[in-house]
Structures are given as C-alpha cells and as structure tokens.
C-alpha cells in the first residue's frame, strides 16, 4: 500500500483539500495505521505549536540538527518537519499564523488545554524532544512517545478535574508531578539522542 505524502497529511489536517481529496485521504487513513499515526502526530504538532509564546525563540542548535539530519538523508517525522518549518519561517510569525489559521481537525479539548506551558524553556525542550525522538531506535521512540502521550492525558485529566474541584491540593500536586515528569522524560530523550549521535550506547 502506498502511503500518503507529507503534503497530503499536512493539507488534510490543515483543511486545505477539496472534498473529494479529503474523502480519499480519510478512506486511506481508515485502512492504514501508519498514515493515521502520521495524521494524529501532525495534529499534535499543531496543538503544541499553538501553545508556544508569541516571542518564542528556537533553541540553539535545533535548526542545525534538523538540517544535518536532512542532509544525511534520514527520514524526518512530521514533528521534526513541523519544527523545521517553524524554525525556518521564524517562531513568532508561524505562531501568529497558526493562531489565526483554522484547523478543523485539531480536537477542541486538546487545543483548549495545550500541554505546552507558556514557559519558554518548556517550549524549547518540547521542540528539542521532537527532533531528538526522531533519531532514536523506532521501538524506543514509540515507547517514549506513548509515555509522553500518557503524561499529556494525565495532565489534561488533572486540569479538567481541577476545573471541577478547584483548590484540591492532591490534584494540584499530581499536576505538578506530571508536568515535571514530562519535562524529565523529554530531557532524557534529548540526552539519549545526543549519545546516539556520538556513537555511544544511547
């Protein structure tokens, strides 16, 4: 089965396909787990990019890392591609662009509770993680992403519970722990990735 192209995935999520094209992509995704994952991944990228602050500054070396990977011919995931687009176009401009742009396929619940906090260091780490994950062995990257997704759900769930039960100390502590754990896992992924590039174990 031939997979969807990057452009098809992007245009589908961005709502820029004709009804017939859209139907064809949806039908393919329904039968192709790989392409459905790509679509889901790109949706998550959009959610995260929307959470970046307007004055976001890309982390030092991130662009070089993406460029080096591209030159080596390594396959970039949609996360890395989106990060590359963000970096090449300029963080603030893309952030504003995304904020204004309708994205009908991005789930509203996720969009309203974007996991990326406004803290610039957290945003930078998220982007660094997105690139780092791409260089890990596939099964390791998948396990890592499932854990990050699980933490995202935990953060969303806890925030939602806190809206219903504001001031609950245990929920607040749980939210803080989940966010801290998410940061730690992303930082670990970057470390593993760096070690891999240096020819070490990880």
């Amino acid at each position, binding site marked *: 089965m031939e997979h969807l192209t990057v452009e098809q995935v992007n245009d589908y999520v961005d709502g820029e396909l004709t009804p017939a094209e859209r139907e064809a992509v949806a039908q393919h995704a329904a039968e192709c787990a790989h392409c459905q994952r790509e679509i889901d991944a790109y949706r998550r990228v959009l959610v995260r990019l929307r959470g970046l602050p307007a004055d976001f500054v890309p982390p030092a070396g991130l662009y070089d890392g993406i460029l080096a990977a591209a030159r080596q011919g390594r396959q970039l995931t949609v996360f890395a591609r989106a990060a590359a687009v963000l970096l090449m176009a300029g963080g603030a401009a893309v952030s504003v662009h995304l904020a204004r742009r309708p994205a009908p396929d991005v789930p509203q619940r996720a969009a309203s509770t974007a996991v990326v906090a406004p803290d610039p260091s957290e945003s930078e780490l998220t982007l660094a993680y997105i690139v780092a994950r791409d260089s890990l*062995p596939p099964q390791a990257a998948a396990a890592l992403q499932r*854990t990050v997704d699980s933490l995202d759900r935990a953060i969303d769930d806890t925030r939602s519970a806190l809206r219903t039960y504001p001031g609950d100390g245990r929920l607040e502590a749980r939210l803080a722990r989940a966010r801290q754990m998410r940061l730690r896992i992303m930082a670990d992924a970057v470390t593993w990735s760096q070690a891999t590039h240096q020819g070490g174990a990880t």
Partner: protein
Amino acid sequence: MRIGTFGALLVAGSTAAAQQPFNRTLNVSSPFSISVVGMQAEVTVIGWSRNQIEVSGDLPLGQRVEISRQDRRVEVRVIAGRAGGRGGRLVVKVPRGNALDVETTTGAISADSVGGLARLKSAAGAVTVRGPARTLSIETLSGAITVDAPAQGVVAHTAGGAVRIAGASGFLEIFTGEGAVEVVRCMVTQATITTMSGRIVFAADLAPNALARFDSYVGAVELRLSSTVDASFELSTFGGTVVNELGPPARRSSEYAPGKELSFTRGSGSSRILIDTYGGDIRLLAR
C-alpha cells in the same frame, strides 16, 4: 578518533568477517572500571575470579571491536563501519567487584555476578542482572528490566518495558511508563515507584523506618505485605477503588469530590507507606 584519547590501544580492530568469532584477553589488576559500548550487539558481562578481561563473541561483517586502556579504565567498544550489519554478540568476562558501565542502542544487556557498581543503558534492548551486584542503575526506553540479584540499591527506569526486581535490599527507584512493576523478595529501606499505566505489585519487606512511595496515574497498585508489617499508611486516589485487608476501609475525602483517602497505622508505625493514584485501584493485601 575517540580511541586516541587513551594511552594504549591494546587490541586494534579485530575486523570480524560475517559472524566470525573473536577472542581477546587482557590482564588487569583491581580496582578498575570497565566501559562496554555495544551499539546494536547483544552484550553479556560475566564476573569471574581471574585478574583478566576476556572479550569474545561474533560481530557482523563491517563491525569490529576495539579495546583500550588508560590508567585504571578499560573500554571495549564495537565500531560499526559504514556498511556495518546489525546485531552481533559480545561476551565480556571481568574480575568481580569492579565498576561496570554498559551501553547499547538496540542490543540486550545481561550482567551476571559482576559484584560491583553497574550502570546499564540500552535504548531499546532488555536489561537483565543476575547474581551478586552492588548498586545498579538501569535505564532503557523500551526494553524490559529484570533484576534477580542481591543488589544494594536499584534504580530502574523504562518508558515502555516492564520491571521486575527480586532479591535486592536498600533503596529502589523505579519508573515505568506503561510496563508492569513487580518487586519481590526485597528488603527495602526506601522506595519510590512511579508508573503511568503499569500495574505495580509490591511483595517485599520493609526495613525499620523505611519510606515507600507509590505513585500511579491509572495503573493499579497492589501491596502484598506481611501481616506483621509495622508501618503507617497514607493512601489517596481520585478515581480508583481501595481494598484494604490490613486496616479500615477508605472513606470519601470530600463530599464534593470523588476522591477516596485512608490513613491508618499498624504496630508502632515505624515505616511509612504513601500511595497516590489518579485512577488506579489500590489493594493492600496480607501475605
């Protein structure tokens, strides 16, 4: 070249043919530290009583192994050529009781009776430790971690794999994303066990004044403790259920919120057990 930083290049590249076996021996005197970088090769480290390091195994065509030494540090490194194949196997025998550091990308790691401090890291391989060891630090992203060793402290982190620790004593720090955690036949002074969705089964003993923390998002937490356990318990769950064979039932923490909590003491309350879950069920069972 990395090897150039070392004082002596003891064995330069045994350029192995396809799966061709190799064997190298190096005399050493303890104490020393050994680092094994196995890349995609499966690495087995075995502690023995000789004052020698023996490196053997087989590697695919295009890969070779280099051994270098500087002062009291020995490094065994698999070097993958441009057309290097995948897999391979490395068996490293080392004098027991020295510091060990092993890293792989996808290769599994096995350490048997190494006797000393061990730091074992694999991105995607499983890690197994058996026999005498001291403190263990084990990290993997998707591999399982299995320890059946009288280690004096274990740190085990895995995002996708399961963790099983048996026979250890001292401190335990365990994290899994989705894998199950099982702790059996251990004497714990301090434990921090965290999971997102894995099930935790803790069937170990607590040393006097021990502190054990369990934190789960949606994974169940089951403690199978001695009926004579001497500890205070503090449990809370936002959406899970609580079954308690060791004390009173849990109660609602608030009339306005769905959480449950429970605090009680058995014996003098020498040790302290803290359990917190978001949606995971909690079970306290008598062993």
